[in-house]
């Protein structure tokens, strides 16, 4: 079996200008921050970023990497709003596709199943469709004739996710309470990279926690603390103090450069 171990910079070396990059986790939970930091340090630009957004979205906006953001929300959980995302939106610095959270999942599923779209009720009647006229509806071919949203596949060039454990072949395990959608991000992407707290020879814990198998992964990065400051339970909780520093610096352009330099390390 292949050894897929890589460095974060090697992962980012696979990401080209203009690509669509999906980022796993949820809000300020289990975000692949080591991989995001490597992306921030790189020269890559013009990205379409697809994320249940937290500071990953904010930071990439801060660095001017984002051409378009696809999201259901952007929030730091314990802090409701991400200041950099707010600024990017309020200055119209980025294009957006703002979706219902369930539509977002359905789009990833469609991509993973190699379907052009999957039907869903969410979105009907709301302004999701008004601001995204490229989204179409479809009528049920059965007797009910119901009109539904035809959620298009959210196809990704690259998926970046962070899990608790992985082996060097790309099998990977979550140990927290929620898998989030990291498996769907990998299935939706052409190139799939997982960072992890620790690379192991064999896995402890129930096999149901093995969320990713090696068919779904092209590269593995050992990155202890690699989700920080977002949470990666049970390895560590969110670093609320560091997240507060991020949010404060992000709210004040004079404070930002110093924080950013220190944060990137």
């Amino acid at each position, binding site marked *: 079996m292949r050894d897929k171990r890589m460095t974060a910079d090697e992962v980012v070396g696979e990401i080209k200008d203009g690509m669509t990059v999906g980022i796993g986790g*949820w809000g300020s939970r289990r975000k692949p921050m080591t991989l995001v930091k490597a992306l921030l340090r790189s020269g890559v630009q013009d990205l379409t970023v697809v994320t249940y*957004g937290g500071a990953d979205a904010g930071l990439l906006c801060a660095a001017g990497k984002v051409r378009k953001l696809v*999201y*259901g*929300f*952007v*929030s730091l959980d314990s802090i*409701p*709003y991400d200041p950099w*995302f*707010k600024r990017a*939106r*309020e*200055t*119209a610095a980025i294009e957006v596709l*703002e*979706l*219902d*959270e*369930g*539509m977002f*999942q359905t789009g990833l599923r469609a991509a993973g199943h190699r379907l052009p779209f999957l039907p*869903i*009720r*969410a*979105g*009907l*009647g*709301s*302004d*999701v469709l*008004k*601001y995204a006229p490229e989204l179409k509806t479809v009528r049920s071919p059965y007797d009910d004739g*119901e*009109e539904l949203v035809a959620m298009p596949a959210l196809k990704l060039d690259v998926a970046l996710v962070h899990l608790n454990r992985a082996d060097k072949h790309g099998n990977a395990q979550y140990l927290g*309470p*929620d*898998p*989030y*959608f990291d498996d769907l991000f990998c299935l939706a992407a052409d190139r799939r990279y997982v960072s992890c707290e620790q690379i192991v020879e064999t896995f402890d814990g129930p096999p149901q926690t093995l969320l990713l198998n090696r068919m779904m992964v092209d590269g593995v990065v050992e990155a202890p603390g690699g989700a920080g400051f977002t949470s990666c339970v049970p390895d560590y909780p969110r670093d609320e103090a560091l997240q507060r520093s991020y949010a404060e610096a992000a709210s004040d352009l004079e404070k930002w450069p110093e924080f950013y330099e220190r944060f990137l390390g």
Partner: protein
Amino acid sequence: MSDITRAEVCVAACADLFLGAGETLASPMGLIPSLGAKLARLTTEPDLLLSDGEAFLLTPESTVEGWLPYRKVFDVVAHGRRHVVMGANQVDRFGNQNISAIGDHAKPTRQLLGFRGAPGNTINHRTSYWVPRHSTRVLVEAVDVVSGVGYDRAVGPFHDIHRVVTNLAVLDFGTPDHSMRIVSVHPGVSVDEVQKQTSFPLVVQDVTETRLPTDEELDLIRTRLDPGSKRDKEVPQ
């Protein structure tokens, strides 16, 4: 019991949202709706299901009785056995709700959270709203962005906006054209005051006074559910 606070009236009003819900997932957002849902489960609705806000369903004794990560929450949303109580930066006379952005969506004057699950919630199952500061800025003639779908735009078989509970009143949409009406005003609040804090004309017919929590409910709120009185920060007396 005496000295019943406005916050406690609001908790009981939120508990009443779940009357008859049975074995349904209650998804309250914010402190007062959460206290309301827990109160309902301890009193009138013992079969309610409640999550810890992460991925577990918990009993009133906080033991895990189920697993409900986000992906399974979406299944419940689509399946329909859920009553969500969401916040609202804006809500209008037909129950359209905005948590996305203030101003023009292309370049908002104030970016908020985003659509979150509001479009899917409102099209799939019962939805109520909690407004801790009832004012003309929140109760608006027309929302800037439709996140949650109101009655004038409702489609599909499962749309059901139940009630709006605010710090002043309980409101619903039980009128012929589903425009918002006052169900009850909280003790010490007048119909005029509720109207004055609302940007559109409310339907006023057979308005009652919001009920006070019972002694049993007060005891549960004060000694078991919120002994630190965090509720008073969300709704000051």
